[in-house]
């Protein structure tokens, strides 16, 4: 008799898992942003009390184009890479959370029965993560993760889903509502598992269970 529920799962090479490519424009954008333009932006934020105002966005666009032009001309302006602007003051401009970021949070969770991660086993996949970001951070945003168990009768699907939910609840700001679903057709008891994974009371009760929480913590110990 097998010790594993799925003895031979397909495995992906960890180096080939989706990750965020280095964006040259991003680097240039940060490097070329001189103190004056940062201050101008801060001022505008103060004036308009939000980064979503149209004027601000236009200014930002111009800044970006200028930065890009500088990059194309291969000109590195002197003294602009080392600004003493306090990072925390720039938090207003923090990037919204995207699917890749959610993927990075959960792809390194360990499978409960294999010494492999959920990313390697293709239980979580980048295209199956949907982030519905509300630009207004005082409002609710949504993250939907569809998971694909390695076999359709996987009895560990609920535990895996719970691990993902606990990880996301701990990592994402509280404005995100998290929905975890089994990918359509991936499991015999799809509806039952889905119902359980999205019942906040059952999840809360599971988190009150020290034994279960121990198993989940072990799964999450490989997260980066």
């Amino acid at each position, binding site marked *: 008799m097998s010790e594993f529920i799925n003895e031979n799962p397909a495995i992906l090479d960890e180096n080939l898992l989706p990750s965020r490519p280095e964006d040259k424009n991003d680097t240039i954008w940060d490097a070329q942003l001189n103190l004056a333009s940062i201050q101008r932006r801060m001022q505008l934020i103060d004036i308009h009390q939000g980064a979503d105002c149209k004027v601000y966005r236009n200014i930002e666009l111009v800044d970006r184009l200028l930065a890009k032009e500088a990059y194309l001309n291969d000109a590195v302006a002197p003294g602009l890479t080392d600004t003493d602007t306090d990072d925390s003051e720039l938090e207003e401009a923090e990037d919204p959370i995207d699917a890749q970021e959610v993927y990075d949070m959960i792809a390194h969770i360990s499978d409960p029965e294999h010494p492999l991660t959920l990313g390697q086993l293709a239980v979580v996949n980048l295209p199956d993560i949907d982030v519905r970001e509300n630009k207004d951070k005082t*409002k609710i945003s949504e993250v939907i993760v569809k998971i694909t168990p390695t076999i359709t009768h996987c009895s560990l699907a609920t535990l895996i889903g719970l691990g993902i939910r606990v990880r996301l609840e701990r990592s994402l700001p*509280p*404005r995100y*509502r998290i929905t975890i679903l089994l990918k359509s057709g991936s499991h015999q008891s799809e509806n039952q598992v889905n119902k359980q994974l999205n019942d906040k009371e059952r999840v809360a009760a599971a988190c*009150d269970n020290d034994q279960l929480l121990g198993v989940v913590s072990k799964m999450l110990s490989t997260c980066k």
Partner: protein
Amino acid sequence: MPITLLKSLELHSDKLWSIDSAKGLMATASSDRKIKLVNLRATDIREVEELDDSTHKKSVRSVAFRPHSSILAAGSFDSTISVWGQDENEDTQGTFQETELLAIIEGHENEVKSVAWSHAGEFLASCSRDKSVWIWEADEMGEEYECLSVLQEHSQDVKHVAWHPSMNLLASSSYDDTIRLWREDSDDWECVTVLNGHEGTVWCSAFETSESQLRLVSCSDDATVRVWKYVEEGDDGEDIWTLEAVLPRIHSRAVYSVSWSPGGFIASVGSDGLLVVYKETELGTWEVVAEKEEAHGVFEINTVKWANVNNKELLLTGGDDGNANVWSFDP
């Protein structure tokens, strides 16, 4: 008809699950394993007591005041129910009196999800993930409990129990998407009807306060709020109920709690952070008369209760932020 925030109390360090109020006192239950009491009559609305937090080993899920007394029952995920009160033998008139543990009731196999007292304070109902509803008979002191019946007809977790405000009629809501109504029948309790219609877990229900008609409001994971109406007694001894109304679909996510005020207003809250008040314009027709977005910021709201304090209608809400918010509502 405005809803105005009177006070936001940062009471708990984790989810606030349940609120009940009586005699100007509000009790709250939380995942931080604490039960707190708040004086709603004081002009500054403040916390007056925290009950012994070593009593429950897991989340406290539900609190309920016993009518005509100062006794409080609390159900916990640790599978027990605690009962609290004040020692009335001691002569401590005029001084602050600490609330003491009167009893611990054991019986459920796992998480207790809800507790509720019957209108006369005679019976205590409890329900659990073990799929059962228990009816307990309490002595006057609130110290002795005898289990009268274990009702096991739900096929899944029972999420909530609610008694009628003037009859010994009990409603239980379940993860099996149904509501069952129970009545005492020659020494035993039996299911008199099953309300089918919700397309998801039924989280909560509440009876209308009325002498002339018998109605129940319920809310569900399917994001709807429904009003059910008693029609007549059927031939087989079962009661016939019908769906009278689906309230305006304003919630976008699960609705976790509903409350029906003695004045006839229904309030609902849920995962979308909305606090909504509905009014019946003509029999069976409801409209939204007030709504508050982000009533607990970006957090989910787990519970709503109407309370009458100093002759004013208040709304009490509790959310995942651990806060209890006290709102005034001007009809």
